[in-house]
């Protein structure tokens, strides 16, 4: 969720200076090694790994990079570990938490992890910059971005943003706001005041901004966990107006599983692992749909930042973003994909830049893995569509505890 705009430049600078340092000190190095003999064709690869149903002797080690710390946003993966779905598919999965400067798709492109979670626009921007990564499962089918404001500001639709102070996170999380403004014919530079916002909701509660960007499953819950100083009680949804970007046709695709494109194309074993990984992850998410409290508890067991009621709220809201999956869980819907790509290409931010300069090629996403995974995951009769899904209602406690 947090990506520094300048990180690439800084990393480049660091790399160059390290390189220079290395060159400066290698006077004593022996002469360059003789060039390696022209690589003979690699030995014939062993036949593609057998599918999961065969007995598992040594599980394949797999790592998954999250965008942030453990929280219910990633419950499906923790549940798949906890419930043994990965083990059932002969996988030994390590879940790697994110950090302030960890960019999941960069970790993936660098080969530090086998799979990574990332929002589609940001990952596509990395892909355009040369990262060979492929979306293999679009887990979140809907966008969870909101613009939250106090009732008395009267902001009930993007048209009401005019003349207001609109908080936004930047770092590529702000494009839905710009798209909504554009759709209403508002000029982001002149008609609204855009204000940088931290990843907490203090600015909204302190009245520094009129409307704050918030995820349904995280920041929106934070304001409902805070005490209203006027009443001494927690704020309630009645105190706020909420603009859901999904309702205005400017939602962009968010959490998806990304894989290494080169390995996917050349390494049959990796592709097989990807299918099994996605299948077991689907089972994890289906489990979390059917046992919301149980999954919130699994996440609590991993040690998240915020407490029990916050995780239960988050689990419930994340389920709403996934279920029902009309095409089947993990499927990338072409229309939604195109909408995301279109907004990424056509919505300039304040600096006049867009997320993407050109449409990504057709290889940027594939439904091949998901379709193969359905066959594996659906074998046990698990519902992969969730058509009858109905959310529960969660009561938040102070501070999310």
């Amino acid at each position, binding site marked *: 969720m947090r990506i520094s705009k300048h990180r690439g430049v800084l990393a480049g600078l660091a790399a160059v200076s390290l390189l220079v340092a290395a060159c400066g000190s290698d006077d004593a190095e022996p002469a360059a090694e003789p060039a390696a003999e022209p690589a003979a064709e690699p030995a014939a690869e062993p036949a593609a790994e057998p599918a999961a149903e065969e007995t598992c002797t040594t599980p394949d080690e797999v790592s998954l990079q999250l965008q942030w*710390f453990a929280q219910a946003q990633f419950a499906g993966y923790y549940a798949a570990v906890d419930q043994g779905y990965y083990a059932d598919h002969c996988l030994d999965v390590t879940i790697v938490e994110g950090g302030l400067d*960890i960019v999941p798709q960069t*970790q993936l492109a660098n080969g530090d992890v086998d799979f990574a979670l990332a929002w589609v626009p940001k990952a596509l921007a990395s892909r355009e910059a040369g990262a060979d990564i492929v979306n293999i499962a679009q887990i979140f089918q809907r966008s969870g971005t909101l613009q939250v404001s106090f009732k008395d500001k009267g902001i009930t639709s993007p048209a009401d943003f005019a003349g207001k102070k609109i908080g936004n996170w930047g770092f590529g999380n702000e494009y839905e706001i710009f798209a909504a403004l554009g759709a209403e014919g508002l000029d982001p530079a002149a008609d609204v005041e855009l204000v940088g916002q931290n990843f907490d909701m203090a600015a909204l509660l302190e009245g520094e901004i009129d409307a704050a960007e918030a995820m349904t499953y995280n920041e929106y819950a934070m304001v409902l966990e805070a005490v209203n100083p006027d009443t001494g009680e927690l704020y309630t949804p009645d105190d706020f107006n909420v603009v859901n970007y999904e309702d205005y046709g400017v939602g962009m695709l968010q959490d998806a599983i990304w894989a290494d494109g080169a390995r996917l194309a050349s390494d049959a074993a990796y592709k097989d692992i990807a299918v099994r990984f996605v299948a077991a992850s689907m089972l994890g998410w289906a489990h979390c749909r059917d046992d919301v409290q149980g999954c919130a508890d699994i996440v609590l067991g991993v040690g998240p930042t915020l407490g029990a009621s916050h995780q239960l709220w988050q689990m419930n809201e994340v389920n709403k973003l996934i279920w029902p999956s009309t095409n089947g869980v993990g499927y990338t819907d072409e229309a939604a994909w195109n909408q995301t790509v279109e907004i990424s290409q056509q919505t300039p931010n304040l600096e006049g830049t867009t997320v993407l300069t050109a449409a990504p090629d057709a290889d940027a996403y594939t439904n091949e893995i998901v379709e193969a995974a359905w066959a594996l995951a659906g074998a046990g009769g698990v519902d992969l569509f969730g058509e009858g899904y109905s959310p529960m209602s969660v009561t938040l406690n102070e501070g999310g505890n």
Partner: protein
Amino acid sequence: MLRRAARKTILFVVAVFAVGCVWELYKVIGPVDGGSVFGWKIIPKASDRAMPHTWDMIARLLEPENRSGGSPIAVTVAGYSWYTLRLAAVGLLVGGIVGIGLAVLMARWRIASRAILPWVIMSQTVPLIALAPQVVSWSGKIELFGWEWPRWASVCALAAFLSFFPVAVGTLKGLTSVPAASLELMETYAVPWRVTLMKLRFPAAVPFIIPSLKLAATLSVVGVIVAEISTGIRGGIGRAVLSYQQASTGDAEKIYSAVFGAAALGLALFGSVVLLEVIVNRNRPREAT
């Protein structure tokens, strides 16, 4: 000696209390919604969310991390601080050894000094947050004699990267500050450079090394915390700062528990260098005047 220690302790407590008083005083007289000077928003807000009461912060220390239950947050934070302290200590040790080693090299050969010093200085212009993700990804890739590089070692490496600098510069200054007369005396004895180093240069450098180590100690703590925040490594105070900050919307005092923890561990590492100073100075011959 004992009376001096007692006086220092009392002064410290008084100083902390005074800071608390200034904080509370500002809360009384400061504007609740902050203010601007010439359009710059620089006057801090005195609201309870921006500046919680000192007694609320202290009371928060006794409540559990997630208010639903468990041990007081002070205990949890002490655990985080202990973890970070160990990483910072390793970072300081490595940084100190590398720093002194480089300084000896540079003091021995002028050409080494000319070659290395610019790189030493340039190294400090590389932002830590740019390096952190690269260095952390060493884990799982590097294996030294069957010892697989763990993630925490990357954090130590980043701390050492910050802390070697003052040690290298300070030690170099110390090693080269020996009076020419003393050096000439050693030359008349025709002792090897190694002996001059051990018997003359190092003892003369101690007053330079100790302050540089004090600087290095604080830098090492900063390095570990920044690396923890930047890469999200679990178990230390940096991660606590980040996650408590996220919780600040509904629990403004929580972050200060982590701030106190960070301050305590900074003092602890600094104190260990002071202890080293006392030990070294005990065996130091007084100047004959």
